[in-house]
């Protein structure tokens, strides 16, 4: 039977198990949309391609499976790029399929022509410009294999319109692309790592997103308890270890817990698991874990020695490495370290229990966590509110926090919440946002309303670009420039305009009464919490300083 390139693409996506695609049509991907009309795949029409990209990310981050978005050539692609770059930095498997002008027009500055290949090259794991319908049969499964293998990442497939329209005879379909099998870990290397851990007096796990990707959370929980090894986490590792675990010390780094940074400072062995020594986590690198030998376990060997020299590089899947380690580790008496760990634990609890204003975001966040269902998915935008969530929301499970860690993209929160809600219709999704960030993708409230998704936007409204204001206060002599909004829109009116219920809260009784009422109702809602603008996120390590030079709290 003959199929067009567009039909082949859709057929292969169906065979790949894709059930949802977010995107926006246009001239150069019309054939793809025509083919989609006959498909079982559910199309989500976002209101901006960046929204479509982040919806795909929300699906991928909350499920671990590769998700798909569509955009047309030119402006459609350029709008999508932010979400793709974001996926690259946080290693999120997304396949973006973009329409391109017909092959014969490429290079002629045709209408809506843009060099998608060149633009996407530095922000993807790999990219393809497809030259024939025939090629689609290898490129599409290959894109899914690449996106999901090893360290995941985004793949762009650019398909010229003539390729979408080209008809070819197909007698059999290729197998769906699957992630590569996990490569075995070098036995002698894992033995060295185990020996180093067994010999250490003050071992510490420094964990990140790689533990979540390899689904090693429960194994890690067993190991830390069996061998009494404490844990600190990066932003994207939150949820791996339950917040109330006595061996868990929270987030390290710039806005990390003091206790976490102190443990890193005093450990003699840092076991780095699925992390990349990002500067927000390490602070001044030369003073990061100054007394420690480093065992680095990661699937991507290019992370070894990239930022900091390590003493043992274990290349492989984190879950696999942990299961090998489990049999090689020996219980040790480390009474000195246990005492330090115990002291850290009480300091952590002291720092977390803040009395004072009910409207302080840290208190609102804790209150929300106490009433939200246990399997609620949290997304954030970028700013102070993001750091408050990271510090104070008691995450208990992997994949319950979706946040833009590497790129730090304002506008991430709402569309990624849509993706999470589409993938988990039975769960509540709360997007914590700021009055700056929310406006970056506010148009997606229309998408939320279209599908009546169970997405709650909780806005911390401080009339400012809060995190930037904080930096100007602390490091630029309180010279405030371009951080205070001249006026802010009436968010309740905006929500009403989209047909979404909302409430504005400006006093403590609103937090305890109106907030739960709206939060616990099914369907979309916007909760606008007016907060003082003077609050700072503390503790904080000044940019470029060592993590021990924490200010505040």
């Amino acid at each position, binding site marked *: 039977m003959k199929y067009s390139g567009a039909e082949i693409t859709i057929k292969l996506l169906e065979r790949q198990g894709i059930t949802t695609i977010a995107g926006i049509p246009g001239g150069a991907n019309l054939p793809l949309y025509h083919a989609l009309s006959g498909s079982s795949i559910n199309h989500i029409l976002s209101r901006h391609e960046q929204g479509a990209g982040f919806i795909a990310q929300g699906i991928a981050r909350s499920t671990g499976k590769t998700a798909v978005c569509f955009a047309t050539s030119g402006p459609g692609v350029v709008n999508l790029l932010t979400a793709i770059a974001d996926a690259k930095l946080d290693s999120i498997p997304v396949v973006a399929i973009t329409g391109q002008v017909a092959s014969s027009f490429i290079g002629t500055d045709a209408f809506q022509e843009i060099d998608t*290949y*060149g633009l996407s*090259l*530095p922000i993807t794991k*790999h*990219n393809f*410009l497809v030259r024939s319908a025939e090629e689609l049969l290898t490129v599409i499964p290959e894109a899914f294999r*690449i996106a999901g293998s090893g360290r995941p990442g985004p793949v762009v497939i650019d398909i010229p319109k003539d390729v979408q329209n080209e008809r070819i005879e197909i007698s059999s379909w290729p197998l769906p692309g699957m992630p590569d099998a996990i490569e075995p870990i070098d036995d002698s290397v894992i033995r060295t790592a185990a020996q180093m851990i067994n010999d250490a007096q003050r071992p510490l796990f420094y964990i990140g997103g790689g533990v979540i990707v390899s689904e090693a959370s429960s194994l890690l929980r067993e190991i830390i308890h069996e061998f009494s090894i404490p844990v600190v986490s990066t932003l994207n590792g939150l949820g791996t270890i339950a917040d109330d675990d006595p061996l868990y010390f929270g987030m390290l780094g710039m806005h990390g817990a003091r206790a976490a940074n102190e443990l890193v400072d005093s450990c003699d062995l840092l076991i780095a698991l699925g992390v990349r020594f990002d500067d927000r986590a390490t602070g001044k690198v030369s003073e990061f874990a100054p007394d420690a030998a480093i065992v680095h376990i990661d699937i*991507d*060997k*290019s992370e*070894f*020695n*990239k930022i900091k020299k390590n003493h043992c590089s274990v290349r492989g899947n984190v879950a696999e490495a942990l299961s090998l380690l489990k049999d090689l580790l020996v219980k040790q008496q480390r009474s000195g370290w246990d005492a330090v760990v115990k002291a850290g634990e009480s300091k952590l609890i002291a720092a977390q229990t803040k009395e004072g204003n009910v409207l302080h975001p840290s208190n609102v966040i804790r209150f929300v966590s106490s009433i939200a269902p246990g399997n609620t998915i949290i997304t954030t935008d970028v700013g102070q509110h993001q750091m408050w969530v990271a510090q104070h929301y008691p995450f208990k499970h992997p994949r319950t926090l979706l946040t833009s860690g590497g790129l730090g993209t304002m506008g991430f929160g709402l569309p990624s919440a849509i993706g999470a809600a589409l993938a988990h219709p039975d769960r509540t999704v709360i997007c914590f946002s700021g009055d700056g960030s929310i406006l970056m993708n506010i148009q997606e409230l229309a998408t939320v309303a279209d599908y009546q998704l169970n997405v709650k936007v909780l806005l911390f409204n401080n009339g400012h670009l809060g995190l930037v204001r904080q930096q100007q206060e602390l490091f630029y002599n309180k010279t405030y420039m371009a951080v205070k909004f001249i006026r802010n829109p009436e968010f309740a009116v905006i929500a009403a305009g989209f047909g979404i219920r909302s409430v504005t809260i400006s006093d403590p009784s609103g937090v305890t009464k109106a907030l739960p009422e709206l939060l616990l109702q099914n369907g979309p809602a916007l909760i606008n919490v007016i907060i003082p603008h003077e609050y700072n996120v503390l503790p904080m390590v000044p940019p470029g300083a060592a993590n021990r030079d924490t200010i505040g709290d």
Partner: protein
Amino acid sequence: MTSELLTIELNVANHPGVMSHITGLFSRRGFNLEGILCGRTGDGEKSIIFLLVNDGEQLEQIVHQLEKLYDVESLIVHKKFNPEAFTEIRSSLGIA
């Protein structure tokens, strides 16, 4: 130039985007690239590329990042090579 030079041999799939992937990697990651030689091999399905780089701290990263590129099929680091291949390009091509 004070540091020693060496050359990295890459065997790659021959298609129009390969060169941008390789040079893009060097510019994006701030690696120094002192020279490039490139040609087709066999039936034209593959290309062979020689990169001239410094033997320094960056080498481990350069090699690891190059190995991650989809189109790079194999990579060999040569410490011994004839540097004239990179310096006498015009004469080796018979161009005065």
